[in-house]
C-alpha cells in the first residue's frame, strides 16, 4: 500500500473542503471495505484520505411526501433491517441482503455501495490491460475470460459490470442521490443519470465531480405493486450476480397496470429497462407477455463469447421474476 496522509471529518462541508484542499490525490473513505482492498493492491493510490465515517449522515428519515431519505453513512445492514424499508421498499431490503456478507454489510456504507468499483478480474490484475484502471492500456476482458461481463451498454474500451445489488433496486425505485460539491453546492441526481456508460472513458464512472461527496439517497414514495429482487449467482450466498432483476409490478385482475424493471450484472451501471416496462404495461400477466418484455429488454444485448449465455439467462430470470411478482396473493 502506498503511503497517505489522513484526517477525520466531523461535518459534511468540512469533509468536502478537506478533499478539495488536498487536491487530486485525495479520497473520501467510509466503510473502506472496497477502498482498503484496492489500496492494498495499489489499484487505488490515494495520497490523502478524509475519513467521513463519523459524519452525522447515518439516519433514515421520513419525508413529507411519504418517501424516505437514507443518510449516506448508514451501514448497508441498518438500511436492510429498517422497518420502514422492509415494509415499504422490500426490493431494497432484499437487494441489500443479497449482497456481500454479514460482516461487510455491517461496515459498508450506502454511499460507498453506490461508488464501489467493478470486480472485473482484469481490473484487479495489474499485469493486464485495463482502460478503467489505467486509461489507454486496452481491455483484456474483451478477448479474455469474459463470462461475468456486460451484455448491454458496453464499449470496445470496457465491458466491466457494476457489482452493486443495492443500486439495481434503487434504479427500479427511481431513487435520487444527494451530494455536496466542492463549491459546497448541494444537488440531487436521479439514479438514471448518476452512472455513466463506459464509452471511451471507463475510468469515469459517475457524473460526480472531483471532490463531490454523496450525502444521502432519497426514495420517492413507494410505487404501487409487488416488489421483488431476484439474484442469480454461481453459489448460493456471498457471490456477485451473474444476472439479477429488480421488478415492481402492479396487476389488477390479471392486467399489468404499472411495471418497473431493472437488471444487474449486465452492464456498467444498474440497467433500467424502459423497453421491458413498455412491453408489460397494459398487457395481461402471462408468460407470453413476460417473454416479450424480456426480448425487448435484451434487444440490443451483445455477447462477447463466454458471456453469451447471460443474454438468455437474463431473459429467463426476468420472466421468472415477473411471474412471481404477478402471482395472485
Amino acid at each position, binding site marked *: *500500500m502506498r*503511503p*497517505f*496522509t*489522513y*484526517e*477525520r*471529518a*466531523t*461535518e459534511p462541508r*468540512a*469533509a468536502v*473542503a*478537506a478533499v478539495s*484542499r488536498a487536491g487530486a490525490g485525495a479520497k473520501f*473513505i467510509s*466503510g*473502506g*471495505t472496497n477502498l*482498503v*482492498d484496492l*489500496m*492494498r493492491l495499489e489499484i487505488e493510490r490515494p495520497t*490523502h484520505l*478524509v*475519513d467521513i*465515517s463519523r459524519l452525522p449522515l447515518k439516519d433514515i428519515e421520513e419525508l413529507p411526501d411519504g418517501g424516505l431519505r437514507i443518510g449516506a453513512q448508514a451501514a448497508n*445492514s441498518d438500511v*436492510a*433491517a429498517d*422497518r420502514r424499508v*422492509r*415494509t415499504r421498499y*422490500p426490493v431494497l*431490503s*432484499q437487494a441489500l*441482503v*443479497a449482497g*456481500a*456478507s*454479514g*460482516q*461487510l454489510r*455491517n*461496515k459498508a456504507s450506502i454511499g460507498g455501495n453506490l461508488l464501489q468499483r467493478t470486480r472485473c478480474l482484469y481490473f484487479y490484475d495489474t499485469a493486464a490491460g485495463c482502460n478503467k484502471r489505467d486509461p489507454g492500456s486496452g481491455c483484456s476482458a474483451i478477448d479474455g475470460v469474459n463470462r461475468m461481463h456486460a451484455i448491454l451498454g458496453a464499449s470496445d474500451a470496457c465491458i466491466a459490470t457494476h457489482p452493486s445489488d443495492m443500486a439495481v433496486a434503487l434504479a427500479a425505485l427511481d431513487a435520487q442521490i444527494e451530494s455536496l460539491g466542492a463549491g459546497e453546492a448541494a444537488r440531487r441526481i436521479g439514479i438514471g443519470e448518476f452512472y455513466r456508460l463506459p464509452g471511451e472513458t471507463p475510468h469515469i464512472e459517475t457524473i460526480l465531480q472531483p471532490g463531490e461527496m454523496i450525502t444521502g439517497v432519497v426514495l420517492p414514495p413507494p410505487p404501487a405493486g409487488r416488489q421483488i429482487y431476484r439474484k442469480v449467482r454461481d453459489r*448460493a*450466498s*456471498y457471490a456477485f450476480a451473474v444476472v439479477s432483476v429488480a421488478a415492481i409490478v402492479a396487476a389488477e385482475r390479471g392486467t399489468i397496470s404499472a411495471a418497473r424493471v431493472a437488471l444487474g450484472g449486465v452492464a456498467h451501471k444498474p440497467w433500467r429497462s424502459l423497453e421491458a416496462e413498455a412491453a408489460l404495461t397494459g398487457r395481461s400477466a402471462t408468460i407470453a407477455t413476460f417473454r416479450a418484455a424480456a426480448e425487448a429488454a435484451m434487444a440490443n444485448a451483445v455477447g462477447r463469447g463466454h458471456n453469451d449465455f447471460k443474454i438468455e439467462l437474463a431473459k429467463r430470470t426476468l420472466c421468472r421474476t415477473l411471474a412471481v411478482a404477478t402471482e395472485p396473493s
Partner: protein
Amino acid sequence: MSVSTVADAKDAEIATKAAHIALTVNGRVRHLDLDLRTSLLDALREHLHLTGTKKGCDHGQCGACTVLVNGRRINSCLTLAVMHEDDDIVTIEGLGSPGALHAMQAAFVERDGFQCGYCTPGQICSAIGMLAEVREEWPSHVTIDVASPHIALTDNEIRERMSGNICRCAAYPNIVAAIRDVADGARR
C-alpha cells in the same frame, strides 16, 4: 491525539505517515504508534500480539479476521486501525479464556465445530455477532418475507448468515450445530 478532526478547516492537523492512537481492545485502552496503513487486523496481531484473530485472505473474502466492533461483526482486514479510535473492539481473547469459555467457544468444542482451527476465532466472533443480529430481527437473503417482523432461525438461516466465514476443512455441519445449541440455549 495526533489524528486531526476537521471541524474547523483552518485548524486542521493532518496525520502524516504515522499516528499515535488509542484503541480499546477487550476492555483495555491500548496506546499505539502506527503507520497509517496498518489494518485493524495487523494492529491486533502484530502490535498488540493478540494473535487469536487470524489473517486468511486479507481481502475480506474468508472471514478469519472477524472481530466485534461496538458489538457488530466486521472484517478487521478491510479497515484501517486509525479509523477505530473510541470504538469498543472485542477479539476472541476477550470472549473467554481456557478456564472460562464463552458459551459459543464451549459449543464449538462440544460439537467439534472445527478441524484445523484456523477459521475458528473468526467463526466464533461472527456467530456471536450474527445471533445478536437475529435478536434484533434483521432479515437475511433466505428470509421468506423481509417485511415480517419475526425471524425464525432455521439451519438455512444460520448457513446464509454465516456465509462470510469460510472453513476449508468444511466443518460446516458441526459449526451449524454449535451455533444452534447456543441459539436454543439463549432462548430457554
